[in-house]
């Protein structure tokens, strides 16, 4: 089971380097070979010389492949609410990765209480990457869209900043760059990467994208990797496998959600989220937050 997490990583590396290999000249073999797993599941050997750090593709190339997504994938996230103790490492990692200001959250850990006498709990809330996304429907310029691998992405080179998608999203998952983004001078001139939505752009939208750039590299999303408490599981629904970001354990997705009676957020709205929650039962940590009663 554990091999799956590793193989996912290797496949991603190969995917990234194959672009480069296609244009690399044939060089003398050193005999120093490493094994790589292709996306079709084949194990191949590649000479080390031929492995070079991939250069960033051009903007148009990046936008094009960013719209297509990773072929054959169907990403899902499972969030185990019983494990969250509001460490907020996910939020920090996310803000670093996506160059967000402190008040901008792609991932926001909320303090929740469902009804008056029920137990409060912490709920990490990323974009739900709905299969029936209300946000992409309303975009007038197709700047936000749903990819074949399930991720809802944004093209900030196209967004006109009408903020209709913010109004449409029932999960408050989207943020706007009301001012010049964080470290704007530092990233000036850097080619835009649609799969991480960086550098951020003033007057446009941003939101969680399941770290699509890291997925392409075969890594888990930033928040998933950063969590110290084993809250997050992430993986591919087509493979029926999800990997825990803390323990690196890989399990069957269907079994995990079935055994733990997983649910999706506000399923009555018909948005069909790709983020599943495991109920906050037998919580590993006591709730120490402050609950704001305004929503009860």
């Amino acid at each position, binding site marked *: 089971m554990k091999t799956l997490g590793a193989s996912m990583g290797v496949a991603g590396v190969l995917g990234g380097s194959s672009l480069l290999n296609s244009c690399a000249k044939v060089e003398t073999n050193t005999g120093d070979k490493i094994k790589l797993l292709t996306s079709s599941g084949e194990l191949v050997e590649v000479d080390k010389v031929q492995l070079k750090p991939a250069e960033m593709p051009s903007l148009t190339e990046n936008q094009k492949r960013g719209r297509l997504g990773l072929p054959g994938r169907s990403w899902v996230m499972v969030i185990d609410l019983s494990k969250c103790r509001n460490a907020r490492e996910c939020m920090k990692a996310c803000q670093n990765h996506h160059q967000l200001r402190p008040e901008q959250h792609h991932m926001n850990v909320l303090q929740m209480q469902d009804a008056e006498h029920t137990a409060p709990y912490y709920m990490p809330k990323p974009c739900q990457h709905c299969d029936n996304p209300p946000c992409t429907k309303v975009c007038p310029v197709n700047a936000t869209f749903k990819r074949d691998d399930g991720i809802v992405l944004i093209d900030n080179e196209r967004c*006109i900043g009408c903020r209709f998608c913010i109004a449409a999203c029932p999960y408050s998952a989207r943020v706007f760059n009301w001012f010049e983004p964080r470290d704007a001078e530092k990233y000036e001139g850097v080619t835009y990467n649609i799969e991480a939505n960086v550098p951020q752009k003033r007057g446009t939208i941003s939101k969680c994208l399941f770290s699509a750039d890291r997925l392409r590299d075969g890594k888990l999303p930033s928040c998933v990797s950063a969590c110290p408490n084993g809250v997050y599981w992430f993986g591919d629904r087509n493979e029926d496998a999800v990997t825990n970001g803390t323990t690196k354990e890989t399990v069957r997705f269907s079994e995990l959600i079935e055994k733990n009676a997983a649910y999706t957020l506000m399923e009555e709205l018909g948005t069909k989220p790709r983020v599943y929650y495991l109920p906050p039962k037998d919580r590993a940590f006591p709730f120490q937050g402050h609950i704001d009663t305004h929503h009860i």
Partner: protein
Amino acid sequence: MMEKIESPAESRKLLDKITFDLTRSIVKKDELTRFWFFILIMFAGVGLWGWIIQFSTGLGVTGMRDYVSWGMYIANFVFFVAVSLIGFLISSALHLLKINWAKPVSRVAEQVAIAAVALAGVIIVMDMGRPDRFLNIFLHGRFASPIIWDVTVITTYLVISLLLFYIPLIPDLALMRDRMGNELPRWQIKLYTVLALGWKGKAEQYKIIYHALRILMLLIIPVGLSIHTVTSWLFAATLRSGWDTAILGPYFVAGAFVAGTAAVIVVMYVYRLRYNLKDYFEDLHFDYMGKLLVFVCLVYLYFNINEYLVPGYKMKLADGIHLRELFKGNYSGMFWLVQITGLVLPIVLLLFRYFRRPLPIAVISLVVMISSWFKRYIIVIPTLEHPFLPVQNVPEHFQNYSPTSTEIMITIFSFVSALIIISLLAKLFPVITIWEYAEEQGIDKKYLTEKPKN
């Protein structure tokens, strides 16, 4: 229509008087006019400056943030679209129903419609985070988005409104071209000459005008209903409490008639007073407009009861939070004031003939207009302040919206710009259709194209 006047001398005399009265707004030049334009342009300049600040700093200069991401601009946009709908009601719907008293009012209605719908378009651009990417709407337009529907119908409505303003104006333009050479500067006469398209007043020319107008009046019905229905869908297409209702389309249309009727009454009153048009915007017009206002207010009241009573009866969780905020929360003061001054009061007062006289009804209409504006504010903002999930880990002011001074400056810009458009139209073209009015008075059309004797 009045009896036909047989005597040529009498016809000419009456036509001279009508022309004199109805072009007074064009000929009259005084300090007050200059002062009026000076004030308007100054405020517009301040507003534009505000927009430049917003453009260079980012939309962060407004009170909007990630949760309340639509604010005063969008409320203002809805208000302008609403006001513009009156053009459709008066110059098309009432015309087609052969309601004759409304004829002299139709050009005022078109003025208001053109100004309002043009500014609605400008406001939307000012609300965009990236107005420099405006063309993306055409380059990458995605027809599944209600915004694209809105852009389509609003542009169409503007074009039809311009035509509905322009086409009945052609005989008037020719009349001014022929008669007013002595009183007006040459560029103005030249403008009329060009715009009159060589009008000669032939029977077949009139036939074309009647024909074109009829087509436009029919065309504007679906377009007019669409502009505000589609605007309501910008809200109704979302899942949020307070917006997520099937009634929003007709609710918006009904509210639009209230705002627009009030706007036309105010403009009518100003013209009557300023250009001495007592005999043209008669007491009876105010009386009828008052009755019309009561009628549209009653329709709107009906929709309001549906909009608030039905969810208020059930108090579903999210709806309940929203409604409690309106009924007795932070917005209760504004909510009840707007419902009373914008709906209940005009219905009650305007039932009495006394309040349908020009001055009282103009004051009431002004109050109704202001209430209509705040009503849009209440439709847009409270809903966004209470999303489904709690607002946490953000600064305090993210939860509660209040507009900034830059935002107010830019909003004032939209108002003065609309007034500039209306004032310019009134300064350049008669505010009542001369030829139509003359014909109503029994003057034969052949006198309209006669050159004056002197």
